[in-house]
């Protein structure tokens, strides 16, 4: 077991280094974009004089390297600073939106992961049957269509034609939980349709892969039922690749949903990120970027740990 703690420590330390490297890259990226916050906000009505005054007020007249290290020093102390554009504390801006993003991601995950695993197992069980083919075709069609199109189709049927669900998911913190679920059902469903295919097909492939092993044949020869073979003998040994794909998709649910947010007017992190980039609000871009990067790193770390735990050979050092 102690190997796991060492590994965890190593990976966390590496994660922090990765985050710092990412923050430097993001800062550089925003600096390379044409224009800065003062020019973007003043837009067409800017004059050289007012842009200069605005930059002085924001501290944008300081050299870029200096501004980066100032921000980094603050961030290491847990202080992300204030948004350049409206002077609100970034932690305040982030907390509500991060909550919303995580809520939508969990909602979509709570539907899509059990759905994908069940469908994957069933597809492996009835391999090459009509059911298997149908699952594959529907899943592939959903994943091939752009998200906004899936969203529009859902809106057309569920809110314009049948008036079952609202087309706007402009939730706020004061709403009761049931209302939250109701209002965010359509965006969650859109995300489910987008992520299910990947996880389902991976589950199916991993199980089928294991099914070719001699020990499965042995189990079959003992006269065990197909479902029991798959659930108790094949699935545990196919878990590692499935966990990795699930983690990847979970990370996507956190960081990649900006299009869905825009179509359903869902107040999540993605919209904040896009606004911050278009206004060159480098402070906010940095902070959101770090959250996204941290989500990827953490989820991958968890996936690796779970893969190890699910594989006694690696866990006990016999491999």
């Amino acid at each position: 077991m102690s190997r796991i703690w060492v590994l965890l420590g190593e990976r966390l330390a590496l994660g922090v280094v990765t985050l710092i490297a990412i923050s430097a890259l993001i800062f550089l990226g925003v600096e390379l974009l044409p224009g800065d916050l003062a020019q973007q906000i003043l837009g067409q009505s800017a004059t050289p004089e007012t842009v200069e005054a605005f930059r002085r007020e924001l501290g944008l007249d300081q050299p870029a390297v200096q501004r980066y290290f100032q921000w980094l020093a603050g961030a290491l102390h847990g202080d992300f600073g204030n948004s350049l554009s409206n002077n609100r504390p970034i932690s305040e801006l982030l907390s509500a939106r991060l909550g919303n993003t995580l809520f939508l991601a969990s909602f979509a995950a709570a539907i899509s992961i059990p759905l994908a695993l069940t469908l994957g197992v069933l597809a492996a069980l009835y391999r090459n049957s009509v059911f298997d083919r149908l699952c594959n075709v529907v899943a592939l069609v959903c994943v091939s269509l752009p998200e906004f199109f899936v969203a529009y189709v859902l809106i057309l049927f569920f809110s314009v034609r049948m008036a079952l669900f609202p087309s706007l998911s402009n939730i706020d913190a004061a709403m009761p939980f049931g209302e939250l679920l109701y209002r965010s059902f359509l965006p969650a469903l859109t995300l489910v349709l987008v992520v299910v295919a990947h996880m389902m097909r991976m589950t199916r492939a991993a199980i089928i892969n294991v099914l070719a092993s001699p020990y499965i044949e042995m189990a079959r020869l003992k006269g065990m039922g197909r479902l029991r073979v798959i659930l108790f003998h094949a699935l545990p040994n196919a878990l590692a690749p499935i966990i990795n794909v699930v983690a990847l998709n979970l990370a996507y649910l956190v960081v990649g949903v900006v299009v869905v947010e825009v179509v359903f007017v869902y107040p999540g992190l993605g919209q904040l990120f896009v606004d911050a980039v278009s206004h060159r609000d480098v402070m906010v871009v940095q902070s959101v970027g770090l959250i996204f990067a941290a989500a990827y790193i953490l989820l991958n770390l968890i996936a690796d740990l779970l893969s190890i735990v699910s594989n006694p050979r690696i866990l006990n050092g016999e491999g």
Partner: protein
Amino acid sequence: MTDQFDILKRSFLAGKMDRRGFMTGALALGATLSVASSAFAQAEQAVPKKGGTLRVGFLQGSTSDSFDPATYNNDFMFATNYAVFNHLTEFAPGGVIAPDLAESFAPEPGAKIWTFKLRKNVEFSDGRKLTSADVIASLGYHLGEDSKSAVKPVLSQIAEMKAPDDHTVVFELSTGNADFPYIFADYHLCIKQAVNGKIDPLSQIGTGGYTIESFEPGVRVRLKRRDNYWKEGRAHFDQVEITTISDTTARMNALMTGQVDFIDRPDLKTIHLLKRAPGLRVETVSGTLHYTMPMHVNTAPFDNVDVRMALKLAIDREELVEKVLKGYGSVGNDHPVSSSMPFFDPSIEQRAYDPDKAKFHLKQAGLSSLNVQLYTAEAAFEGAVDASILYAEQAKKANINIEVLRQPNDGYWSNVWLVKPFCCSYWGGRPTPDWMFSAGYSKDAEWNDTKWNNERFNKLLLEARAEVDQGKRAEMYSEMQRLCRDDGGALIPMFGQYVFALKDTVQHGQLSEMWNMDSLHFIERWWMA
């Protein structure tokens, strides 16, 4: 009958007549019973009614929004600002300026010194009374060396402001300006509370008809009516909620499925779907918004007036309005004064597409053909790239080859506009010819995007500004419109219309045309039938 009918309607609206009187009168005028009652229903709808919640879906609104009036830059903040704050003056229908916080304003002869008298019964939402110190501090915020405000260049004409007593403000201008009260209706110049001679720029305490219940930048704002609003006959909705719905399809869907009552900027390609939906209507307003292609008159080949004329004649404005604006606009005449502005001169001949005449002007310039580069981007205005390509095709008939260079949207206003000698741009417009010309056409204007320097024009601009005889001013502004049209560097092919869509239950009186949606005063002025 119509005239008498109108009189009848007006006396009903003024409360001089009850329903029975109205119906009897209408029937006596020969209207059938059904016409009379539907006319009554119409007239009744035109009477503002208190109550209801207005839910609005807006294209704009960003997480970077704040209540700092120096950096307001989208409709979301403009409309919220007009609901929460008041200004010294406000835009009324017909291009007229009306008193708001100032109950009266008057110039000394020469229009160099202006005295504004403030209302005495105005309270901020925290109960404090409005005084002239608040006005001085609110305006002062936009002046001074450290100001980042977009209105700083406009306010620079104020040489001195004084407050002789609590309800009087006196302005001394560097030159006379007969249109001076207009500038105070600008959304940047909201009046906030002074604390030790300065305003807190982020303060949300105003004198307006609404207070802020909650504000989430880039998401929504919820407004609540104040019980003791000083302005009578305004602020009818109990509550107003503006949501940013930046995806146009989502915005139109929200209106059609009844989740909002009113949206701005519907997609013109699919607007027929909205018109077909029951209980909705689409409205248009022709204001001062116009699209331009400024040429730098100090750069070859645009320094030759014949070349400029050839380029102005080589564009088919009608086709541009029809194809780029989908008919929601009107042709421009190469000067920025719109038909809704005071001193617009309708007698100036409309310029039309004429490739042969364009060739003639090229010949005058000693050229048989012309090659120019036109910089463009969607940031300039929606459809600018299409407009540029269409123009390039039209100009070929006049032996003019326009190379269309598409630029990135990011940084367009800092890297292309005012920098490249021929590009696409737009102006939201200004309420008066003086302000419009001073902002973009006088020789020392901050945004003189054509680098035009016409001696006669610059002289007239100063003279007309200080002239108080309206007849003489009209003559001067007419001459300036002609100078701009024939000598200036701006190619102004079209004026855009503002388009918005709303439920039939949302009602309003005559619209002010300065900006979209009743000059963005809809929260205070409209009501729910």
